[in-house]
């Protein structure tokens, strides 16, 4: 996504980009796993959820963003597991926080936010805020796309 690379700050690609990526990964999913047996529902849900996240990460600019890079790396790493978000350098950040005695409430909340945003474990707080802003934008966009899909499919 060369276009997303050049976007400044927290601009986000349009909705159709997300829709395109998501539908693409859904069709991939269907190709790989035909989903014929209904007892695989949990597995299917996990797969679709992962497809949603991965397609969102791809639509949001591939590896240009920290959170999308972390998400894609994680998704490549455990292809058969649920998408979990790593907290790689958590110890460093907590040690730094403790040593400097920063505002404890904000840092604690930021610590919780680090667990939510993928790849947030190694981020500084200001960078974490920026990535969170972008992540929120992309996530809401993805939710819109998925809602649109569900609405379009459910009347059938």
């Amino acid at each position, binding site marked *: 996504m060369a276009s997303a690379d050049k976007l400044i700050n927290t601009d986000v690609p349009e*909705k159709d980009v997300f829709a395109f990526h998501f539908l693409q990964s859904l069709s991939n999913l269907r190709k790989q796993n035909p989903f014929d047996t209904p007892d695989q529902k949990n597995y299917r849900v996990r797969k*679709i959820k992962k497809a949603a996240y991965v397609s969102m990460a791809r639509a949001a600019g591939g590896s240009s963003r920290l959170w999308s890079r972390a998400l894609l790396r994680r998704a490549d790493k455990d292809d058969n597991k649920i998408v979990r978000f790593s907290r790689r350098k958590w110890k460093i950040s907590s040690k730094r926080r403790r040593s400097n005695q920063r505002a404890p409430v904000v840092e604690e909340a930021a610590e919780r936010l680090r667990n939510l945003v993928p790849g947030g474990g190694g981020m500084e707080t200001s960078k974490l805020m920026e990535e969170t802003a972008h992540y929120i934008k992309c996530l809401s966009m993805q939710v819109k796309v998925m809602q649109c899909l569900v609405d379009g499919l459910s009347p059938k």
Partner: protein
Amino acid sequence: MGGESNEGGEMGFKHGDDESGGISRVGITSMPLYAKADPFFSSADWDPVVNAAAAGFSSSHYHPSMAMDNPGMSCFSHYQPGSVSGFAADMPASLLPFGDCGGGQIGHFLGSDKKGERLIRAGESSHEDHHQVSDDAVLGASPVGKRRLPEAESQWNKKAVEEFQEDPQRGNDQSQKKHKNDQSKETVNKESSQSEEAPKENYIHMRARRGQATNSHSLAERVRREKISERMRLLQELVPGCNKITGKAVMLDEIINYVQSLQQQVEFLSMKLATVNPEINIDIDRILAKDLLQSRDRNTPTLGLNPFAGFQGNIPNLSATTNPQYNPLPQTTLESELQNLYQMGFVSNPSTMSSFSPNGRLKPEL
């Protein structure tokens, strides 16, 4: 005030001498070692020199100025080790309160403000004639020396030195115990930067007014807080219902809740999609077409930026043919578009590329 952009230790002293020439320089350059070696030495040494000056010992004109400078230099050499780093950077901006305090301190140190200022002015302001300087210094110094007894004077000096050492912790911003002051000041700064989003000039002015918290750590800390609050503002616009909230903690809680709710929504929607997934076979293309048509109405120019050249080129066909009824023609075009995308090296998903042979296998499943 004379030497303004000099090091912190000599500031208050420089305040005292207005455009002073060689005499005050002698005092400056000679005194710090002298006074730093023993802080009480100068104050203890003060009385004999003044007494000697009062007694007419003014043949070498440097002595009175040094006698003038003794209290001042002993004062400022006390806090000089504490306030070395980063002090010189903001010196011209932070001159005024600092210099005032320094002058007040000198005057206070000498007992009475007027007398102290008069002493210093007399000792150092007129530097064109050295003899006159020494005479003025003697004249100015003599009432102080005469008014107090020598032992009382030395006690007074020590008391004043201690008072000066305690004084910065109370009110003034100059201190040798910087760390305590920095912590309290950082809290104050945090409150102020939280309440008012200071523009750049105001920010600098705030720093200048305080004058103290300018070492590299607190500067970096302040920059970091600025960045965080700026990003928080950015986040505040994104999260609905976050505009009315003041206070970072509550706002962050709200942001966390929002992210969590979005993630739960994704999970819920993927669950829903999983239930409808078996009969999704043809509908995906329909929805894709619909989505693209809906979104294409708003953002035609932004699509031009995307690398989907073949993708957007075929969309007018779709919108022309498939919007009223979903006939099988657009599906085949979409298939070919997807294949085109894969073939043109859609590099952002190498994993699917590797597990996916584009030509043969996509078509029967769509």
